[in-house]
């Protein structure tokens, strides 16, 4: 889907509950850190933006250099955030929808269970 991407799920109290470096680009530690910094900073924008629209998918809300942040805000104000460098909006949107579905399922089966988390992780990696 994307050459560089970082996916993170942020709970409603701003705690990251899931993070994954996805995409085909070679993974570098400092890059992964920068991705997290960008996503963390984008929360400020999501915070304001989420209340101005009824859409769940907020595309390209923030960018830094070539990295673009797209966010999917669930009804429970959990934020699925994707940092990517290509503008494949439809693909990202469907990715978000699938992840949301998975997230609800896993949530239902209690995220605390490590098996479910593993399944969740594998599914997300697969979707990329």
């Amino acid at each position: 889907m994307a050459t560089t991407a970082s996916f993170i799920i942020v709970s409603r109290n701003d705690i990251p509950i899931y993070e994954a470096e996805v995409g085909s680009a070679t993974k570098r530690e400092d890059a992964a850190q920068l991705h997290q910094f960008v996503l963390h900073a984008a929360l400020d924008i999501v915070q304001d933006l989420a209340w101005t629209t009824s859409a769940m998918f907020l595309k390209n809300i923030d960018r830094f250099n070539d990295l673009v942040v797209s966010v999917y805000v669930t009804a429970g104000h959990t934020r699925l955030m994707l940092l990517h460098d290509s503008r494949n909006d439809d693909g990202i949107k469907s990715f978000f929808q699938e992840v949301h579905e998975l997230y609800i399922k896993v949530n239902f089966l209690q995220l605390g269970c490590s098996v479910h988390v593993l399944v969740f992780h594998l599914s997300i990696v697969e979707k990329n």
Partner: protein
Amino acid sequence: MEPDVSIETSCMIRIAVLPVGTVPASVLRDYFSMFLRHHTIPLAAISSFYTEHQKSPFAQQPWDAGSIRFKFLLGGAPPSPWEDFQSNRKILAVIGICHCPSTPDLDSAVEQFAAACKSYSSALVQRCFAFCPCDSQLEDGGKKEDVLRLFPPADHQTLDIHLQTMMQEIAASLLMDFEKWVLKAESAGTILKTPLDSQASLSSEEVLKAKKRRLGRAQKTIGDYCLLAGSPVDASAHYTTALELARLTGDFFWFAGALEGSVCALLMDRVSHIDAVLEDEVKYQYNNVILHYRKSFIQDNAQRVSPLSFELEATLKLARFLCSSYLCRRNLSKEVVELLTSAADGGKSLIDVNDRLVLFVEIARLFGTIGYQRKAAFFSRQVAQLYLQQDNKFAATSAMQVLAMTTKAYRVQSKASMPDPPHTKKQTGPSHTDSGKMHHHLVVSLFESQWSTLQMVVLREILLSAVRAGDPLAAWSAAARLLRQYYPLITPPGQNGLASALNNSAERLPSGTRSADPALPFVRLHSFPLHPSQMDIIKRSPTKEDWWAGSAPSGPFIYTPFSKGEPNDTSKQELVWIVGEPVQVLVELANPCGFDLRVDSIYLTVHSGSFDAFPISVDLPPNSSKVITLSGIPTSVGPITIPGCTVHCFGVITEHHFKDVDNLLLGAAQGLVLSDPFRCCGSAKLRNISVPSISVVPPLPLLVSHVLGGDGAIMLYEGEIRDIWVSLSNAGTAPVEQAHISLSGKNQDSIISIPYETLKSVLPLKPGAEVILPLTLKAWQLGPMDFEIGGGRAAASGSTGRQFKDASVPTLLIHYAGPSTDSGDVTSATGSTLPPGRRLVLPLQVCVLPGMSLIKARLLSMEIPAHIGKAHPKPMHEDDPTTETVEESERKMEKRLVKIDPYRGSWGLRFLELELSNPTDVVFEIGVSVQLDGTDDNNLSTNQDGSTEYGYPKTRIDRDYSARVLVPLEHFKLPVLDDSFFMRDFCNEGSTSSSRSSSFSEKNTKAELNASIKSLISRIKVRWQSGRNSSGELNIKDAVHTALQTSVMDVLLPDPLTFGFRLTRDNSSPQQGSDSKDSVLANDMTPMEVLVRNNTKEMIKMSLGISCRDVAGENCIEGEKSTVLWAGVLNGITMEVPPLQESKHTFSLYFLVPGEYTLVAAAVIEDANDVLRARAKTDSPDEPIYCRGPPFHVRVLGTA
């Protein structure tokens, strides 16, 4: 790019403020802050300094409402290549600051100032301000009035007014210079160039183009000066012309500049009423500005110079403008974000790193303004990274400072920056409400932030920049935060690296440096140990004389190990500490990291200063926790709080608050914090302990006890009696004025004597004095459980420990107190409360070994029949006056226990048989003694208590053997059978019914029985001795009680009637030897008499009968085969015996056949009273009461 740009920047006159001579930094800062107050000078105020030389080009100057604005640049700035393009970039004035006290030579100062001014060629006005000159300098300085301005010493306000005047003067001269410049420019025209203009040789076409453009540029510049002169309307007019000209010539760059100027003029003109329409206008115009700056981008010289920075500046200016409006209207935030994001995008193309730095700084500031803290932190970090790319110390310091600002957004801030500035903290000392709030904040932040990756990166960058900047304390603090908060995410080598970073930083710090951020170890409160039992404190109330009563705990345990670990108790109770007496607090340390941690010193923190804490040093191996005891001495009276510990570790002193760790553990329990440091060290979970309120009281006496002969356990056999001596000494500083001994715990009655008086007599016990109290101890009986534990002889010594755990030892409680009014000031401070008393708990460490044991006790009846003799039977009863005449030998005999009373007969002689066994490995000697009532036996040999003791020869029982001891019970008989006996027993029992009649209910009989058994048993004592110094008494009470339960009546009470037989015939018969004087011959008339004694206090009427039986038991008086003839009456003899008297009845027997005969007297009592009935245990009142005497043997000898 320039920092801090806004739309209004275009109308500000730049003034360089330069220090001249030596000006101390703080003084310079003070002077500069004075300048800052005068950044706006109203035009109305400068009119007195203003003289219009020519007609002013600023025709529309608003003299009433307008103003001139200054922008002060401390230290000045290098000239900008863009000065021609934007006139506000020029430094138009230079002001020198001279601090006269540190610069005595004004001449050289003026020279120095003049030299400094040379680099500011654009400066129109130069002034040197000399502050605080002395008198000579005042005089001297007056001569150089053209440049030098002297500010005589004055108060701050006067100085301020003086400075204001000077600034107005500067404003006026600047205005006049602007007028001159504008007039000159309009007439002559000037060549205005920017770096954008091609430097290469111009072609003729380009020269022509440049000429055309010159006019527009001049108009723009004039507009700039109009703006600086505070005349926006004039500026606007010039800008409009410039815009037209620039558009015509395609000079987009200058067009954009003129447009910027016109927006500024617009804003200045309408500064008082900015509305939405104006906002939209500004927005529109500025977007236009940005667009035209972008248009002016020329590919040719893009490598060398680019208008990009102007585009970005314009973007920032617009963003800043929107930000200020944003404060009123929030919906502008999206536009601001858009602008800033595009500005950040543009930053990539900036050539100069410094420009990018300024850009990111500005972006971060603007994001901060609209409340996007995380965005601001992000760009601040970008700034810091740019700084870190420059390899110098100052850049690193800047990076560190910028990163320090981001710590709040990333929630890794240093404690020093958190609650309030540290200097105010030092002054006031943290109050408790403050720390409570802070902790709440901390907890919330714990729950909110989990971006551990970011947090670690930020802390690592702070550490890096601090190391580079050479700030060891900041480096230490960052490393400490990193290590303390993220140790689970750091590999052991990383942890080691941090530890060495801490140590390296500490080496550069002066010793004794404090840091607000604690590093390792984690410290939590473990418990407050209760006072050792030697030092218990008891509250005294002034109203209660015996304050110790009720203070003892109700349960059997005075001091149990359970109460130690009971934090609930600890939290509720108030701790009382005593001035001058060491106290202890247990804390637990944890080192969850992979290196050996050495805590150089750790001690309790008490802010009030009324506590001397003793530091200790601890070594913590990797991944370990340790409970340590911290002690100290309270030094003054009053409440004390212990918020935490002060730790000296990794070379820096830090304060560890217990609450922080509590919060951390709370977070860990909820899964919000990475790890529980104590749990990962294998320490057990501890319940939350709240710090109890501790109060310190004035010095109290302190008794210290020890048992003479060693404090080890005293080994005693069961029943052993021993004296021990307890020494009490006063180790406190106050005398003991009251003292009271009481007993507690199990087996209290094993302490036979307590020296109350000895203790009383030594009071008051001065500090250092000692008293020895003798105690007599009697070892108690071991229960069945104890037997199991200590039963084996071999295990006897090993079982001692277990016996102490049973808490079966008796405990001596000594309550004592010092003087009730200690010193006047203390009592007045604490009201009327007395200083508390203390309790010394002294468990007597006695180990009881199984000793002689009683296997069983039995009541034995024996029959040793008496022979009828001539002698008069001796009455038993000592109150009988005849006893007086009894021979000495008889008295001797009486002293022996086993004797047969010939008068009483031997029928029903009762013995108590005690079967004893010796399971020990020593030999015991048993002695039985019986105490007789002193009142009855007062004429016998008496003991010291007035009672007679009958001693037995000692019985020796070897190890593993058993023996039996017989105790005759005859001596317990009462002399008289009457109701007073019952009465007395009831009185002894404590019964209130003293007016008892002679009727007895069954219940009362039982009670009477028990009472009499008790008194009987208490008189029998079985003492033993083993070796030289072990002696004791066997507890036989229970066993004897059971043995005697059924037949105590018979043992205790005399029969109502006693019978005896006697030969009454003449003793002169020659055949009779003295030895056979009591024998009876067959075929001989034998006169006899029967003696009947009334043992009651009533006259008894009876019908007496005498029977005689032979050896076969046949009645030989009556019947067909009777072998005995008789004379006199033998049956149905009616007798009346007066109380306590005896009566005789004589008769004669004639035995036909020699042999053994038995004579028995019996009587039926007529008209028996209740006492007799009770004695005979009759069921119904109609039942006849039948009394039978003991059998008497008669041996009838043959005549042959």
